[in-house]
């Protein structure tokens, strides 16, 4: 019951005129950056972090979160109308969304996607509202070894989900940690990794890295591949929207299944993408007519959308209770939190309840307003992508440069941004995942101090990470996750060997 009371206070915070204005502005900007190539959610949030220094923390986090939700809506528009998944978890939405749009049912596809998005987010927020205080209470028992263990679990989950090459995921993560370490030693205050250069003393800002890696890297990739946009034009008819909405409750099974998959997967870092694919796969398996999937069936739009957005919202749970971001965008928001002087983690609930509940309240409000807003403005947002690329592209570079400079008012950061742009492009092409690097850059200091404090506690014995009950279990899981790719490889080899004699 306490949660309901707190939620009401949170809603009150989120609905105050100023915060509501901030929220709508954030949603609008978010959808805008979500639609533009090269400016995803992570980037939009990173560029606007300097702006948030002028706002009270609660409004600031509402702005950033609203940009994130808006960017998710924007990603839906590009994947359905242009077959361009703005974020990896929109890929599955393209499977049926784009064919539907091509068949002239763009309005239906978009309405379905937005409503599914809304439903997924609502279920996840419901769970978040009631689970977050419990988890926070539990994590209050955590000391440095446990904090470190949770971080290890985060990164090993990223490695096992990472993609093509687990080694490259590890390397990318460690490079992030190294960049975070550049500058001043947090314990002894000695300079390290600066090699006598004053420019390096300030270290690398994660904001600049995000803008370069995601923003410029994406721009470079797009021009290199030669962008061809073949968008489907859309007309949103009020009647079609309502007719589509009336149809949706028939698919309640897909909805509930997707939302649960999303909530479950979303708690783990990097969970939204596998959640969307899993939900799509299940929907296809359980469907009466699976052969229709991929040709533009409405269920194929519902399933990945519900799951991806339930996952996107439930990623907030580990962020506000543990200080562990589930996605690059969340990592940037978390970095912002630290810059406003808030310590993410369980103490947030105790020390800044109006902040946490304001954020949770704003998720409810943002998703409700967001659906109506995007439904009304879809043609406008779609027209942005029809603007000539040679106008969009330099404008994006300009906005990125503003964001990079404004973090610390340093010229060198704009140069770093361009450098990170090339790194981002090379890494994408060579299958080095970028997300773990950004997460490591944000969490670097926290992970390092947790590790060193633990070692001080144990007088140098690394056993402390394993002989405390919670830390031991979490670290054990981390080790298991970490070696999971190896286990699967070995298992396949053994199976092949077992099968080989039969073949011969």
């Amino acid at each position: 019951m306490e949660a309901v009371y707190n939620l009401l206070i949170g809603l009150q915070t989120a609905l105050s005129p100023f915060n509501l204005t901030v929220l709508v502005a954030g949603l609008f900007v978010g959808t805008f950056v979500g639609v533009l190539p090269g400016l995803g959610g992570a980037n939009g949030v990173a560029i606007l972090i300097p702006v948030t220094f002028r706002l009270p923390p609660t409004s600031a986090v509402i702005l950033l979160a609203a940009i994130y939700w808006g960017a998710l809506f924007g990603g839906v528009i590009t994947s359905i109308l242009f077959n361009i998944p703005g974020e990896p978890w929109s890929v599955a939405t393209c499977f049926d969304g784009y064919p539907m749009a091509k068949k002239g049912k763009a309005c239906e596809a978009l309405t379905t996607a937005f409503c599914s998005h809304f439903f997924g987010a609502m279920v996840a927020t419901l769970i978040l509202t009631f689970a977050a205080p419990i988890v926070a209470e539990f994590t209050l028992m955590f000391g440095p070894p446990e904090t470190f263990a949770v971080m290890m679990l985060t990164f090993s989950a990223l490695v096992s989900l990472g993609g093509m090459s687990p080694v490259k995921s590890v390397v990318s993560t460690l490079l992030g940690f190294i960049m975070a370490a550049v500058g001043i030693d947090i314990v002894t205050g000695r300079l390290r990794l600066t090699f006598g250069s004053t420019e390096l003393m300030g270290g690398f800002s994660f904001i600049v890295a995000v803008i370069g890696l995601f923003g410029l890297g994406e721009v470079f990739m797009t021009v290199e591949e030669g962008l061809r946009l073949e968008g489907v034009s859309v007309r949103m008819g009020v009647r079609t929207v309502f007719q589509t909405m009336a149809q949706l409750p028939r698919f309640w099974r897909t909805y509930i299944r997707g939302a649960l998959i999303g909530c479950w997967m979303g708690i783990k870092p990097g969970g939204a993408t596998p959640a969307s694919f899993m939900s799509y796969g299940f929907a296809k398996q359980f469907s009466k007519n699976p052969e229709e999937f991929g040709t533009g069936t409405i269920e194929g739009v519902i399933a990945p959308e519900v799951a991806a957005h339930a996952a996107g919202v439930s990623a907030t749970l580990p962020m506000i209770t543990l200080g562990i971001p589930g996605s690059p965008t969340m990592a940037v928001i978390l970095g912002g939190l630290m810059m406003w002087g808030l310590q993410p983690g369980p103490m947030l609930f105790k020390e800044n309840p109006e902040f946490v509940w304001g954020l949770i309240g704003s998720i409810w409000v943002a998703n409700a307003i967001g659906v109506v807003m995007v439904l009304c403005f879809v043609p406008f947002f779609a027209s942005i992508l029809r603007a000539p690329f040679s106008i969009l592209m330099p404008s994006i570079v300009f906005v990125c440069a503003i964001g990079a400079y404004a973090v610390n008012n340093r010229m060198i950061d704009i140069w770093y941004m361009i450098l990170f742009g090339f790194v981002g492009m090379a890494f994408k092409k060579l299958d080095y995942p970028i997300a773990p690097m950004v997460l490591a850059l944000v969490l670097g200091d926290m992970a390092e101090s947790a590790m060193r404090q633990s070692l001080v506690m144990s007088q140098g014995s690394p056993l402390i990470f394993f002989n405390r009950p919670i830390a031991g279990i979490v670290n054990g899981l981390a080790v298991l996750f970490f070696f999971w790719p190896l286990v699967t490889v070995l298992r396949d080899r053994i199976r092949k060997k077992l099968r080989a004699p039969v073949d011969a």
Partner: protein
Amino acid sequence: MRKADAICALIILAIGILVLCEAARLGIFGWSTSGPEPGMYIFLLGMGVSVGSLVVLGQVFVEWRKAVPVKPFIRPGGLRPVLYVAVPAAMMVLLTEFIGLYIAAGLYLAVYMRWIGKHKWITVAAVSILLPLVSYFIFDRIFLIPLPKGRFEDLLTF
């Protein structure tokens, strides 16, 4: 692609070795007044990165021996548009040091739109004047974030 992969791994290996040298300078093993020696943490990172890049190099070598077919790193003809974006952008940053970001960005927008986009002069003028102007009001005036103005500092901040 394979060559790029190898070069990238070599660069990462170099970074790893650099970090290891720094760790050695700060002291890796042993115990100081504030806990483990300051080099211990970065030693672990440097070690991980070096080993990881060596594994990647090994994988590339194995693939090369097996002659696994790969895509080229840069699509044929793909380098030119990237440079068209990157070189003017670098010029813009360079100019920013002297004439400020707003004017440099205006020039950059104009140059790119006119020579690469081949837009009409009227469009070029409109975008390259309006966009920096709007950003000036949003960032400098509303949110009080001073962006670099170079020599035009005195003219624009009044």
